[in-house]
């Protein structure tokens, strides 16, 4: 959504125009010699230039319109900047924030270094109103057990270790959080400041868990290949699935040992293609694991067949829907796209077994190029009685349709000014407008003169946040700390008074 709004807010710089500026250390103001600036150019390769010894750079949009800049320097958080036509020729001052690092060594209970462990710095993010545990950085430990989680924004993180190689030695080494628990809790977060490198040595511990055993049930008359079937156990949590075990069946039976308590998906598939395709046998079921063994789980298999999902797009105000592409994106394949007809109807054809996320793209093809169309946005997608816009939907043996997608054109335009704590215009600042209690954010920005350009989608009370990097508005710590930086504003449908905002002294 942010990208979409940015594309609406920022006009491209015209070919032949130049942009220049200085890259500095946000903490000290010192120039960052050698910092790289990547300019994304329409219909061409990105331009890359480096800042000179004084941190100064200059770019010319010689080959085509420039859209935005990505700025980087080793040890600093990357930054991005959009353009407006009025900024052409202006001097930009881009301050990069020193990144934090969490580094250390991982050992197991025997004191052996843990090699090839996946190490992540994770924190909850608020995505579509849900708290989702997401990695801010990830890496792999080396043969000495050393790891280094770099490029972290200041904040609090859990360090999560998934030691697949060690778990292959001993299944009791389940994925765990420093200092050894299976779940993140409030007491074991690591706090890092901007530019700080914290040493965190990890000693992994064994967890017995429980045993899950059962059998795979084939559909009657199925032609079963001579190869083994496989049963996978995947964690089932908001934000994604992760395979924790994969075992072959023996005579149709399977045993998975040392499974920690939690929500899982048990997936079985016959030897064949991956991802499964037409004719392959698959089965899947949800499983809640507690502190007792599950000895008799039956996974019923069925044959994958392509299904069609029909649907309709309607507008919330009853007007005619714009032309759209409706895309069902799969984790296990390229997905399927359909174009809506004049009356808003569409058909997603040939969906195979799996989970799909839904996206609507209000675009058209003009002379072979994708052209942004209506500013309409999706507010609901219902599959029968179920709302699936945020959760996606599952396709199994038969069509789960029809889909009813509701869109809206409502936008409330915002203008105004933002000044820094000295009262000077705050240029090139990204702002987030968060609807009170709904966790639906809208992103705007200031231009080179501190003028606010933003829009939100519905009336209500909004918190306003300065967004120093893309992830901060999803960070609950950041949101909590900065909830009162600006007064809450009440926005109504139609015209609103210009905003007059002054950044707090700590920004």
């Amino acid at each position, binding site marked *: 959504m942010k990208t979409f709004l940015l594309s609406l807010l920022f006009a491209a710089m015209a070919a032949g125009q130049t942009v220049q500026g200085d890259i500095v250390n946000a903490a000290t103001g010192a120039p960052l010699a*050698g910092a790289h600036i990547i300019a994304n150019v329409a219909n061409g390769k990105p331009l890359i230039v480096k800042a000179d010894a004084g941190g100064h750079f200059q770019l010319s949009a010689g080959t085509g319109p420039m859209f935005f800049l990505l700025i980087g320097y080793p040890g600093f958080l990357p930054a991005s900047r959009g353009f407006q036509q009025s900024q052409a020729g202006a001097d930009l001052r881009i301050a990069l924030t020193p990144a934090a690092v969490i580094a250390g060594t991982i050992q197991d209970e025997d004191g052996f270094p843990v090699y090839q462990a996946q190490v992540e710095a994770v924190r909850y993010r608020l995505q579509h109103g849900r708290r989702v545990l997401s990695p801010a950085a990830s*890496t792999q430990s080396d043969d000495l057990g050393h790891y280094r989680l770099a490029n972290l924004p200041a904040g609090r993180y859990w360090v999560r270790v998934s030691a697949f190689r060690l778990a292959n030695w001993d299944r009791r080494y389940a994925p765990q959080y420093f200092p050894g628990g299976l779940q993140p809790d409030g007491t074991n977060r690591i706090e890092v400041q901007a530019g700080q490198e914290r040493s965190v040595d990890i000693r992994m511990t064994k967890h017995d868990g429980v045993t899950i055993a059962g059998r795979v049930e084939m559909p009657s008359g199925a032609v079963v290949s001579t190869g083994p079937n496989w049963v996978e156990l995947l964690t089932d949590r908001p934000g994604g699935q992760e395979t924790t075990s994969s075992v072959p069946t023996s005579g149709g039976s399977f045993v998975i040992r040392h499974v920690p308590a939690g929500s899982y998906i048990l997936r079985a598939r016959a030897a064949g293609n991956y991802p499964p395709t037409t004719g392959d046998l698959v089965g899947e079921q949800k499983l809640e694991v507690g502190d007792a063994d599950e000895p008799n789980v039956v996974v019923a298999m069925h044959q994958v067949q392509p299904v069609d999902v029909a649907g309709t797009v309607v507008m919330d105000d009853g007007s005619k829907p714009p032309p759209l592409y409706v895309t069902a994106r799969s984790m296990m394949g390229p997905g399927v796209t359909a174009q809506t007809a004049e009356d808003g109807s569409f058909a997603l054809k040939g969906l195979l077994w799996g989970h799909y996320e839904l996206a609507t793209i209000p675009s058209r093809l003009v002379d072979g190029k994708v052209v942004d169309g209506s500013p309409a946005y999706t507010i609901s997608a219902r599959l029968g009685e179920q709302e699936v816009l945020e959760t996606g939907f599952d396709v199994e043996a038969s069509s789960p349709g029809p889909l009813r997608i509701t869109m809206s054109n409502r936008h409330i335009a915002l203008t105004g000014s933002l000044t820094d704590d000295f009262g000077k215009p705050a240029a090139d600042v990204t702002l987030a407008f968060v609807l009170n209690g709904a966790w639906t954010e809208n992103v705007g920005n200031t231009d080179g003169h501190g003028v606010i350009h933003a829009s939100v989608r519905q009336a209500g009370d909004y918190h306003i946040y300065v967004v120093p990097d893309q992830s901060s508005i999803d960070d609950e710590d950041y949101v909590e700390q900065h909830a009162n930086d600006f007064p809450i504003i009440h926005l109504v449908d139609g015209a609103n008074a210009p905003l007059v905002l002054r950044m707090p002294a700590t920004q």
Partner: protein
Amino acid sequence: MRFLLSGFVLFLAQIHAQTPNPPNIILEGDVTDATTGTPIAGARIKLETFQAEPFYAKADAKGHFVFQGLSATNYYLAAESPGYLEVTNRRADFSARFARGNADPNTCVIQPGSSGIAKTTDADGTVHGKTPVSLVKAAAIAGRVTDPDGLPMENARIEILRKVPAKSPMAGPAPQPLPDGQNAIVYLYGGQTNDKGEFRSGQMEAGAYYVRVNSSGGGAWDSSYRSTYYPRAVDLAGAKPLEIAVGQQARADIQIARLAGVRVSGRLIATDGDVSVSRRARITNLALVPEDSTGYANGPFTSGRESYSFEDVLPGRYTLLAVTFDAGGDPFGGNRKPVLGMKRSIEIGDQEMDGVDLTLQPLADLSGTVTFQEGCAAVPVHVATWPQGPIGFGRLEAITAPDGSFVLPELAPGRFRVNVSSPGQRVSVTSMKLGDRDVMKDGIDSPVQGGEPLRIEVGCNPGGPR
């Protein structure tokens, strides 16, 4: 009566002899350093069957370990200790099947390495097995990558390539030859540099290795930056392999080479009735492949709609490959269909080359037949292509008709291998010809000239499942 009683006792004794209690089985051994022979105290050893909980043991101060209470079954042994290469999947077969098939019932084998072990049986039936376990010290390569200006290069791709004799099994069926003609390189490790430009590849065997730094895609990798081999060479001919001994920790600091080249650009022209390629939702992917490429020294890639441009191309002779994909029916779903293609040779000098217009032709089908050797059942087989060139254009698949014929639709330009498999029985290709040319080893160069059919002959293994 006495006769009857003694007969009954004899009968009972026979029953006892035929159904003995399961034997107590013990496996023990010593873990030592493969080079020095010294014991490795604290090494850990695992014995598993994959059906039950594994057994674990730890070597004592003399490197000795013992497993007790084993069953008469087939085990796999693994051993590890910090700083040593892990030993895995050594078979320790105590099963009845093994005992039946072995001429000497007092011997069992831990594989591989044909390390036969003496098996002794006590008066109480306890079976003792013994195996030596020697571990080899692991080597490592670590280093730091800097850009041409000396700044740490983050997220650069590091590749470790092992130098092996071209004719050794390690080189694989399609070795990537080195300029000396005697040796080949095998891809061993791929990783990325961290925020300080550092990398480390551990758990390595002794040997000769090339280290190459490459773009990981995106980021601040300028078009004038070159894939660079340790210490600072842009090709294998100038690269220096690191000769690493057992357990050695070698260092390979690399500064990325910067070499400006020339631009090669032009229009993309279709021949299928459209005025230009861009009249539909089309995207063309292009690659410049050096004609002396070993497969690890691919040239630049680019893409375009109506036109294309390669930046900073070095002088040399290249093959220019292009494939146009049509995404009109699914511009966001990823189901893009290759529709047009071309391949040509191009000599690039030290001057900019603008106006190199490319005409893209409709892709042609490749048809052929599969025949079976005598004695093999003619079953349907699965025929699939695998790209061998620098740009993967996906995989084409076909199932043979009852007469053995197949059609691989719209084969993109490039070089392809053809694999044949069957879900019903094990099959192996014995000959593969395109016209009169043998293409079994080197694959097929597309577009195929003259519409020649592909003729594949396969053998079978009638006794075994696939």
